[in-house]
């Protein structure tokens, strides 16, 4: 994507990397995304089962009938399943699947040690929605396929893929229409946010804090979170390269963020803590008090609430934005 390459050229996000004014850049970006990326709409008629599915890793599998016993191995997949109206067909989840509330009643079969194969087998699933990029251990994926279970692996490294994954899950569950409606709505929300953001003149340098102990964790260039910050109207400060997870304090000081988003607010980090850190109080963001907490779950989870997350992020970067169409953000960090 055009915007990304420009930013990567300078190695980190500093305003002198831009060749165009901020607003036009964003408008161009959105236009390019809409034009070039295949946001698949389920235009074709819903076929009856059996149907062939190709997952995000390129594995082809055939589903003989509409799955009635589904195991989801990631919080995002669970949310998507519920949002598509298939929540009653879920029989297994991971330990971390917390949304919607109904999900907690489902049997957990996966934890940080991997998938509990016995539990999985005992549930007799006819579809397993796994997560790629090693979220579900590849050995477990291979084992489940060995035992004969259809496993669809989903992995969304960027925002358009989130929508194609929703449609992929919709196809696997036989809920194509619901999926199409959801993605259309999310596209519309994306456009609305984009419009509102491009109306704002400024594009502040934004540091999204993923974590602060023991090192400062920031999004990598070209990562999902960096993209989210861009579309939310910020100029993301990123780590040095795609393999680096952390950023040294000196680099951050040089980058001098104008806005600091606390992506770890859910884990107890609040603006007051940031101001107290040695060396941080010279940053523009701290001086002007532009340190704002955000609920990281909708921002980072590639699921139905992604656009809520984008809106929350946009509001955190540009507090003046109303975005009335979106629900108000839940308060985090009462002190600020």
């Amino acid at each position, binding site marked *: 994507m055009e915007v990304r390459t420009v930013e990567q050229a300078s190695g980190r996000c500093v305003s002198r990397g831009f060749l165009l004014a901020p607003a036009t850049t964003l408008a161009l970006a959105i236009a390019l995304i809409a034009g070039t990326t295949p946001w698949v709409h389920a235009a074709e008629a819903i076929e009856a089962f059996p149907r062939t599915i190709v997952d995000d890793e390129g594995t082809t599998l055939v589903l003989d009938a509409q799955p009635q016993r589904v195991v989801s191995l990631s919080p995002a997949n669970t949310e998507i399943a519920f949002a598509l109206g298939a929540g009653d067909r879920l029989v297994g989840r991971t330990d971390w699947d917390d949304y919607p509330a109904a999900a907690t009643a489902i049997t957990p079969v996966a934890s940080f*040690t991997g998938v*509990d194969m016995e539990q999985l087998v005992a*549930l007799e699933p006819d579809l397993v929605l796994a997560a790629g990029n090693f979220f579900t*251990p590849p050995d477990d994926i*291979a084992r489940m396929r060995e035992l004969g279970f259809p496993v669809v692996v989903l992995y969304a490294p960027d925002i358009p893929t989130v929508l194609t994954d929703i449609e992929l899950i919709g196809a696997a569950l036989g809920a194509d229409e619901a999926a199409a409606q959801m993605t259309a709505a999310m596209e519309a929300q994306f456009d609305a946010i984009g419009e509102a953001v491009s109306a704002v003149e400024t594009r502040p340098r934004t540091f999204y804090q993923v974590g602060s102990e023991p090192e400062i964790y920031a999004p990598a260039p070209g990562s999902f979170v960096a993209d989210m910050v861009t579309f939310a109207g910020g100029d993301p400060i990123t780590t040095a390269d795609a393999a680096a997870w952390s950023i040294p304090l000196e680099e951050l000081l040089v980058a001098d963020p104008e806005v600091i988003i606390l992506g770890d607010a859910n884990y107890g980090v609040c603006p007051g803590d940031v101001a107290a850190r040695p060396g941080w109080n010279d940053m523009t963001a701290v001086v002007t008090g532009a340190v704002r907490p955000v609920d990281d779950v909708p921002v980072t989870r590639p699921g139905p609430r992604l656009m809520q997350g984008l809106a929350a992020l946009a509001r955190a970067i540009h507090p003046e934005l109303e975005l009335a169409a979106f629900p108000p953000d839940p308060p985090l960090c009462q002190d600020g």
Partner: protein
Amino acid sequence: MTTTDLLREHAPVRQGTFEALRHRPVVLGLIGLVTLAVAVVAGIGLGSVFIAPGDTVAILARELLGLPVTETWASAHQTIVMELRLPRVLTALVVGTGLSVAGVTFQGLLRNPLADPYVLGTASGAALGAAIGVLLPIQIAWLGLGLANIFAFIGALAAIAIVYRVAGGGGRSTMTSILLTGYAVGSMLAAGLSLAMYLSGSQLRQIFFYLLGSLAGSDWQSLAIGLPVIAIGSILIMSRARSLNGLLLGDDTALHLGVDVRRERAILLALASLVTAAAVALAGLIGFVGLVVPHVVRLVVGPNARLVLPLSAIFGAAFLVWADLGARITGELPVGIITAVIGAPIFVVLLRRYRTGYQL
């Protein structure tokens, strides 16, 4: 009155169950087999899903013995028993045997009670191999073995081969120089492993779990390859028990007792390395089995390899099957943690006894 005279006067009278067992190794072996059998039964019958014992027995009777039993159980339960639990328990049995037999052999070859199967850089070599296998962006399997398993096997053998050559292996170079070289090579490989782990990013967890050892990935295909290697290797080692005994008093005495030291050392080293590499490829780096089980067996029956080898095989197998059951019941902890938690205190106790002499 010399000190030795005083010690002699206070030497304890030998009596009690240990003494009785020492003279009846067959009884000890039977006890071991019973423990193993109970462990296997418990391992197949218990797990995170409850299956009625009657169903378990019926499934096994029909699938293993071909008895005409009518199917009254859920097919999922049959999958769990036959595809998940049975291969896992058998893998634990085989790996426990292999590690214990290798432990006895290395302790005898190196004449060092602190030796374990991993002492000649095997651990680091296997771990580095596995890490490379995990990190390579290729997903191939050969005969059902993943890349990590295959590379771990190769890594373990490569490490020992390097150590043997660097130490000038085979000649009159002493086992001490091999031991020290093993330490050095192991450290180098461990450095490589640290680098691999640093670069591994989101795959760190996989490498880490491999390091701790786990039987979770056990399946019939891996077992079909690992079992013959470990079984044949162990039997061949046991057939050379006489040479291991000969080495007890040192190389020169062994030669005088008619042992072809150079040849036997090479053969035993190769066999023990093969068995260790296979065990490590199947289950990762499970510690303390190869170190502690031979010691405990020796405590009871003395250092005669003809007894220590088969008894260590039996008790090592039982130990690991029980440990794996414990790992499964406590929420799928890596089994290496369980063996460490049980084995380390035992080892400390043994060390204390060893210093003050094995007096029972």
